[in-house]
């Protein structure tokens, strides 16, 4: 297969990924919202899929609706539980997502994270991977709908605004450190995303618990206690934090090789540092009387906002050595 074919395959797989994730998202939402009331699912899945596909990307509307109606109708016939359908589609989508990255890497003959389109694709892949791991290990299926929304939005943004054809990298990026530094940053960002989703749910749930407005069969009741959500968010953050630390340090080593200094307060470096500091504050706050709970959770969300700003804001608002936009 030639490079052009591989690049083409990558784009096709991207479309497949988005479609599968959208249906998985609907199925997760159905699982969360209606539980075992399966009959209602099929119709809703179809309607919602159409709406969401439209929002995610104009070019994927046709294929999206076609698949949605095909798959959405299936549970009604075979009486598959939405949860199982969601996980199946999620895993299939994950495989296609992996295929996107692999085929793109092969087409370009390099690691497939050298521009914003590829970063975002890789980060959403890492987030979905982190979610799948968390789901399998801690049975955190309830996060599925939220992680799928984040992944679909990220892939939509990547395709609509950031798309870039397969191309070579600039000499500065031509280093084995791209495999290590950027991969670590991508993995950490993916995990932080899952932790962020859990943190938001924690805030919502603990608010409902505090007010006593928890309905017996509501969506919130299907989630673990706010304590459990808090522990999950913290656990995933504790996984991601050392990786983020390592990513920054490896970035510094690379910067020392490429630019002649290991730390130069480049905007990207500044915001990586800010993100790191706020996550460190979160980890400490969680163990400090008077700060644990909601305040710490808010810190985690600020840290996540800094992480997102580091990715989008820094590349488009400031000029620096990390401008790959």
């Amino acid at each position: 297969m030639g490079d052009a074919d591989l690049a083409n395959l990558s784009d096709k797989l991207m479309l497949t990924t988005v479609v599968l994730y959208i249906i998985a998202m609907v199925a997760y939402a159905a699982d969360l919202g209606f539980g075992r009331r399966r009959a209602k699912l099929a119709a809703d899945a179809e309607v919602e899929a159409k709406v969401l596909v439209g929002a995610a990307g104009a070019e994927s509307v046709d294929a999206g609706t076609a698949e949605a109606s095909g798959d959405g109708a299936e549970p009604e016939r075979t009486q598959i539980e939405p949860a199982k359908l969601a996980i199946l589609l999620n895993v299939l989508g994950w495989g296609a997502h992996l295929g996107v990255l692999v085929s793109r890497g092969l087409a370009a003959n390099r690691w497939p994270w050298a521009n914003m389109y590829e970063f975002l694709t890789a980060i959403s892949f890492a987030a979905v991977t982190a979610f799948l791991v968390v789901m399998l290990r801690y049975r955190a299926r309830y996060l599925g709908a939220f992680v799928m929304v984040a992944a679909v939005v990220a892939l939509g943004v990547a395709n609509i605004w950031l798309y870039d054809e397969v191309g070579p990298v600039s000499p500065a990026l031509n280093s084995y450190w791209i495999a290590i530094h950027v991969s670590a940053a991508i993995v950490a960002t993916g995990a932080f995303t899952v932790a962020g989703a859990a943190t938001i749910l924690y805030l919502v749930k603990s608010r409902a618990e505090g007010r006593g407005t928890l309905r017996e069969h509501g969506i919130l009741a299907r989630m673990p206690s706010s304590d459990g959500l808090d522990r999950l968010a913290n656990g995933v953050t504790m996984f991601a934090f050392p990786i983020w630390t390592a990513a920054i340090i490896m970035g510094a080593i690379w910067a020392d090789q490429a630019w002649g200094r290991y730390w130069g307060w480049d905007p990207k470096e500044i915001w990586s540092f800010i993100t790191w500091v706020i996550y460190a504050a979160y980890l400490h706050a969680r163990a400090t009387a008077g700060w644990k709970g909601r305040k710490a959770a808010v810190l985690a969300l600020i840290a996540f906002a800094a992480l997102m700003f580091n990715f989008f804001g820094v590349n488009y608002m400031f000029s620096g050595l990390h401008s790959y936009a």
Partner: protein
Amino acid sequence: MSDTETESGTRPPAARQAAQDAPKPKGIGPLGWLRWAWRQLTTMRTALILLFLVALGSVPGSVFPQRGQAPEDVAAYLKEHKTLGPWLDKFSMFDVFAAPWFAAIYILLFVSLAGCVIPRAAKHYRSMRARPPAAPRNLKRLPQSASFETDAAAEDVLEDARRALRRKRFRVDAGGGAVAAEKGYLGETGNLVFHLALLALLFALGLGNLFGYRGNILLTEDDTFANSLSLYDQFEPGRVFDSDDLPPFTVRLEDFQAEYEKDGKSRGQATDFTAKVHYRDDPQGAEKAYDLKVNHPLMVGGAKVYLLNHGYSPVFTVKDADGNVAFQDAVPFLPMETRNYTSEGVIKAPDAQPEQLAFYAILWPTAVTTEDGEQIVSAFPAPLRPVVTISSFKGDIGLDDGTPQSVYKLEGIGETLQPIKDGQKLLEPGDTFELPNGAGSIKFEGVREWASLSVNRDPGRIPALVASILAVAGVVASFMVRRRRVWVRAAGGKGGRTVVEVGGLTLGAATSEFDDIVAALRGPERDGPGAGPDEGGPDAESADDGQGAEPGAGRETGPADEAKE
């Protein structure tokens, strides 16, 4: 979290309460005040606020141009913002990371950190050497507990337990009919190493700032650079740098090679740069060759040489009105845009007689005319069809009185330097332009390339790397390893059988390790009736309903599991 918003918001944290309930500073003199201030500073609450301030204080460093990174942008900003600019400057907004207020925040933060971590390290050292704490009276009340009966004698059971726990690398202490064991000190060790490594990192950064140096040079092909202060285009010494510290190496740029994508959408994008250099460690040393590339710096004489940038140096020969050669050299041009490397530069011939001559020129590496035929543009960054346009000037260049001048700019145009009428001309390599009225001539000989190199030495580099690695190792250890305690008590029960009680306590979420230990103690044949390990505690409940998220790495308490004192 059962606290409502208002409660958790208004209730003072324990550490803070402790600080406030400490003896009132009033009436205990300056020492008492100092002690009070120290306690305030070393609370976790203060540390959190300082952490947040460090993050917040870094933000302007990314918003405003910084002198350390882009001094020319700062100058432009000040020019553009006549009222706001000086105010921002007063608050060091253009040198955020060297600002006194920023230094105040991070020094306070690190003092606070040291004030917490160092006493903790001492405490940890003592507890590592101390005996594991004796068994509590009622082992059944511990988060993890189990009991069983056996026919073996109590002493044998305890001896077995001692050995089994030792094998699992617990620190074990036996006595009083019980075995006490503790393990997992690495967690706290890692935590302390992480924080101390951060302190070390700060010192490493300071070391580089004090003793290091960095400088930039622009080198045209065939030129040689000798490492001496006067030959740098730009030089930033550390605070206590001594110019005798400069290693006496020389570097000659043989050839600069750039490779570009030749077709497709990314045509013109650079794919590789190589500066072929020859260098000597000292002027008498043997000449060695090196391919300097973007990610492959050259190490020479304790310094590192980096390839930073590149551009073109067209070669010109200028003759004056008398026909004498007034100037003949390669002139580095600066790129006006980096896509196709249209570059500009000036040629100064102060030796020209009777009047000094100067030229402003634009170089198009691959010149093509635009579709309307009006303009020339560069279509490719490599010098496939180099063309320069020349604008000529005569008069006084302004170099004679010794005022320093940029080599990339002409000064006094329209005042001391007058444009020569009809003095514009487009030249290809080899072309000569005879200035009107026999004022002289300029010949475009050809194009060479230049590379800009950065030379630096940072003695803090290796210490910083070591500190960083320790920090990562420390944080990983502190997140992965939990301290856990196990107690085993054995006593004779009714019917001559021995009753064995096992209790476990883990900081944070419990692990299955306890069950393994109990199983090992009971052995396969000792299956007493109704004596399964019964786990208590909140974790056991939530684990069953399928929703109790129990992150394996999730120690319930964060990196610092006690409120700072």
